[in-house]
């Protein structure tokens, strides 16, 4: 019998977790450089920075990577500590729904700029 919840696709998730991590790490370093260059010193600069095409694109990718990465990480935590299938399924569902909502929220913030 197949279990209702779990990772049936081990290696691909393992590699996705690392790819999203590297993408987010690069974005983080770029953001640190931008902050050191003073993008957060005024609203005009802050707004102009995130409105520029490449930054918007990269920020969107960062948000998507974050949600996917968080999904794999949080799912692994539930799988390690929560054994009853129904409790686990509920927690998995709530995690997916929350992360989908956050992804939509981030898209909406970037869309309005």
């Amino acid at each position, binding site marked *: 019998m197949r279990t209702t919840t779990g990772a049936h696709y081990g290696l691909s998730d393992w590699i996705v977790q690392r790819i999203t991590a590297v993408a987010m790490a690069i974005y983080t370093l770029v953001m640190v450089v931008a902050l050191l260059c003073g993008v957060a010193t005024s609203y005009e600069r802050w707004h102009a920075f995130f409105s520029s095409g490449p930054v918007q694109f990269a920020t969107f990718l960062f948000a998507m990577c974050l949600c996917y990465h968080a999904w794999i990480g949080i799912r692994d*935590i539930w799988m390690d500590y929560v054994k009853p299938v129904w409790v686990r399924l509920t927690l998995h569902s709530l995690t997916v729904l929350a992360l989908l909502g*956050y992804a939509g929220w981030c898209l909406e913030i970037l869309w309005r700029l």
Partner: protein
Amino acid sequence: MPAFRPGDRMAAPRSKQLINKPRPKFLDLTAIRLPLAGFVSILHRISGSVLFLALPALIAMFALSLESPEGFERARQLMRQPMIAIPLFGLAWAYLHHFCAGIRFLLLDLHIGLDKQGAHQSAIAVMAVSLGLTTLLAAKLLGVF
């Protein structure tokens, strides 16, 4: 016929005996001393879950800062309030720890620093860099320099 009990050598063929042999277990968490690398690992999990829980607050702050000039000012003021600044420093540490420990795990994946001494040293480096940078960031936001 008596019921089969684990460890009963007469009741099962040899292969079964091995499977049913009670394994030595030592899970007294108060007596196990976790090596620093293990500490870094569990903190990676804790920092990740803390960041996940804080996501709505962080996204809300980001939205506020980009909403309008007033929103930007408001976000800046909020970050100076102790009730918000202190949790933010905690989150900054969580991000930095997750970042540094993550890089350490990526290097271990590439078979870099797998030996006992190297793994211990990289664990020390993760703790030192993440705590050091958090202190630096906190000092900067508190206006020390």
